């Protein structure tokens, strides 16, 4: 009797396991709006009558700490615990050997547009569906800038500071028309150490921690001056006037006290806390911060007084780094057929509208976005900026891209901290990149 019960239990367990294996398992980006949005989209997919039980989607989340390292280890080990996994533009080259290219329906171009689809491509092949796009805004305090644009005393002081610190005759401009000089002059004007009458402590807050994501934020300065990682022949081109100008801008602002003293340990969260305290006038930051910073309930000191424009312009124009998060197919997936069906569905207007309504940040074509545009007005701005100003550095999707960002972060923060000269930092970066990007 006991043995038959045991046999029945084992059989049930085996059947359950088989069923679990037949599901499509998806490893998503945990703990943020991306998770909520993916849950909503997956629920919608699972509720559809034409989705077979063995193709239902099961989501897996752990935590963000060391996510990419853990994912890399799991993929390299040939783990089949998930069929679809998160993918980022800057990591495609590294993960591509452990993933399979996918073919999306032709309609995907109409949903996302070529430029956004390209954020999930490596060596001409599509590796995933782009679910979220990240880029940068120049955040500013509307109340402070409005007064600067209307107060004659402030304007006179601004012109005096611009002449003294930058050696240029500048007048305050609306943020949408800023060049990097205008940004620098504005930041200095709102810095107590430079202008004791400033209503806030700092003119800006820079994210200068030795961290690859901070390099992405800073890259807009170099690109707007015409900088790139390499030229068409594959020569490393970071030791250039464009890079020097961008690096010197950060150092001058930091040394002048225009950014908090601990900026060399700041990343996304610290910069938001500084700006949200009401003691900072401007900030170059990821688009993901916009909703919370401008919400009076979440950020009482500045909520309702935050404006966003594209990053300032340089000699080559106005640019913002863009990268996408998306979902791609694990080479060791247990249920490839089911996983591909879900990916194809994810590239439809129905899926992306549900994803956007759930809090995700997909960059969608205007027609696809229209039904949810009233609910997510920020996505219109996101799509516009990505299309007009978005860039990816040459080589920034290669296998050595992540290491290149790391290398730049180490060298450039060393320069900003005064530990090495600009020449030393750029020479070491160029030499290291030549090794990393030739692989």
């Amino acid at each position, binding site marked *: 009797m006991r043995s038959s019960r045991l046999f029945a239990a084992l059989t049930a367990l085996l059947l359950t396991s088989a069923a679990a294996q037949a599901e499509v398992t998806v490893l998503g980006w945990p703990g943020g709006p991306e998770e909520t949005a993916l849950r909503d989209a997956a629920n919608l997919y699972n509720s559809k009558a034409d989705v077979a039980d063995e193709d239902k989607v099961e989501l897996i989340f752990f935590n963000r*700490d*060391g996510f990419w*390292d853990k994912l*890399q*280890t799991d*993929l*390299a*080990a040939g783990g089949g615990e998930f069929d679809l996994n998160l993918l980022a533009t800057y990591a495609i080259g*590294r993960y591509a*050997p*452990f993933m399979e290219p996918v073919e999306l329906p032709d309609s995907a171009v109409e949903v996302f547009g070529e430029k956004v689809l390209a954020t999930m491509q490596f060596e001409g092949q599509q590796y995933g569906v782009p679910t979220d796009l990240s880029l940068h805004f120049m955040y500013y305090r509307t109340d402070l800038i409005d007064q600067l644009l209307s107060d004659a005393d402030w304007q006179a002081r601004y012109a005096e500071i611009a002449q003294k610190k930058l050696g240029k005759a500048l007048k305050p401009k609306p943020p949408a028309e800023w060049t990097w000089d205008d940004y620098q002059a504005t930041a200095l004007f709102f810095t107590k150490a430079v202008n004791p009458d400033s209503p806030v402590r700092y003119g800006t807050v820079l994210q*200068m*921690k*030795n*961290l690859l994501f901070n390099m992405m934020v800073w890259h807009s300065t170099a690109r707007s001056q015409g900088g790139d990682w390499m030229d068409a022949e594959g020569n490393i081109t970071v030791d250039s006037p464009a890079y020097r100008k961008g690096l010197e801008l950060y150092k001058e602002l930091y040394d002048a006290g225009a950014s*908090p*003293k*601990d900026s*060399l*340990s700041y990343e996304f969260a*610290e910069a938001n*806390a*500084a700006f*949200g*305290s009401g*003691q900072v006038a401007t900030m170059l930051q990821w688009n993901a911060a916009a909703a919370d910073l401008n919400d009076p309930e979440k950020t009482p000191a500045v909520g309702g007084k935050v404006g966003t424009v594209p990053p300032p312009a340089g000699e080559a124009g106005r640019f913002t780094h863009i990268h996408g998060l998306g979902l791609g197919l694990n080479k060791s997936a247990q249920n490839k057929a089911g996983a591909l069906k879900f990916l194809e569905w994810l590239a439809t207007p129905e899926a992306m509208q549900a994803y956007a309504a759930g809090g995700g940040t997909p960059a969608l074509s205007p027609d696809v976005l229209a039904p949810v545009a009233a609910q997510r007005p920020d996505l219109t701005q996101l799509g516009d900026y990505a299309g007009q100003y978005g860039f990816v550095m040459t080589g920034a999707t290669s296998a050595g891209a*992540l*290491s290149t960002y*790391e290398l730049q972060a*180490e*060298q450039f*923060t*060393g*320069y*900003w*901290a*005064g*530990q*090495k000269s600009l020449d030393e930092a750029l020479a070491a970066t160029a030499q290291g990149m030549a090794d990393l990007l030739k692989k």
Partner: protein
Amino acid sequence: MQSQHLRDGRILLAPLTIFLLAMLGLPLVVDLIYSVSRVEFRTILSPEFVGLANYASALSSENYWQAAWFSLRFGLVCAVAQLLLGLFLAIFLAPLIDRRPWLLAFLMLPMMVAPALVGLMYRLILHEFVGVVPWFMFTYFGDSPSFLGPDNAFRTLVVVEVLQWTPFALLILYSAYAAIPKDVREAASIDGAGPWQRLWRIDLPLMTPVLGATFFIRFIDSFRVFDNVYTLTGAGAGGATTTMSIWVYEAFFKSGDIGRAVAASMLLLVAAWAVLAIVHRLSERRA
């Protein structure tokens, strides 16, 4: 009868031996292979033998020696500070803990917290706009230093490490202090020895082996620190707060240079073994 004892002993030791071989021996063998191979994530199952190239590459790296110097300084400063502070607290609080032993459990709380959490906690506490320490500094002095900036990062990291791990030194040193027979101190008192003489001539000499062991344990722990430094400052501006563990982690995961990272780990293992052997030799000579 003796062979029976020997066989029983072997049988009883077998599970532990198998466990150690599986959990330590096997990874060590794999590490040895990887340390003499060119291996990246994409070639993790097909390493290519390169001899001692990874060791040479690690040893010729300026960053490796910078990280080694940081870890050595950090380990020594933290171990000395924890030892002195732990010793002071053990002796100063001994009468109180003797009467209320539960206080010891309370004093142990800092080391119960995960080091990574401690790092995150101090990121908040020291943040200029949301942290309590800068708030007091601004309120009473009108300014606050850059706690995590290049000039102060080392000092801040040392203070955080010492605050978290001094309780460990306190626990061991208090136990050693409490284990000294009271009649020895009473005899010294009767012979006219004052508190300082009793400390220098009785307590400290009797506690010397424990002081040495505590210093060694804390030095090793602080030398290989990772979590709280990584969450507080990461590798630091220009790599200024890169510890050996962070160097290995970044070589492994960020650069994907597995052979080089494992070779550096093996060098660390050899160095730790050498220090252990020296300490062991010294303690044997003393005995």
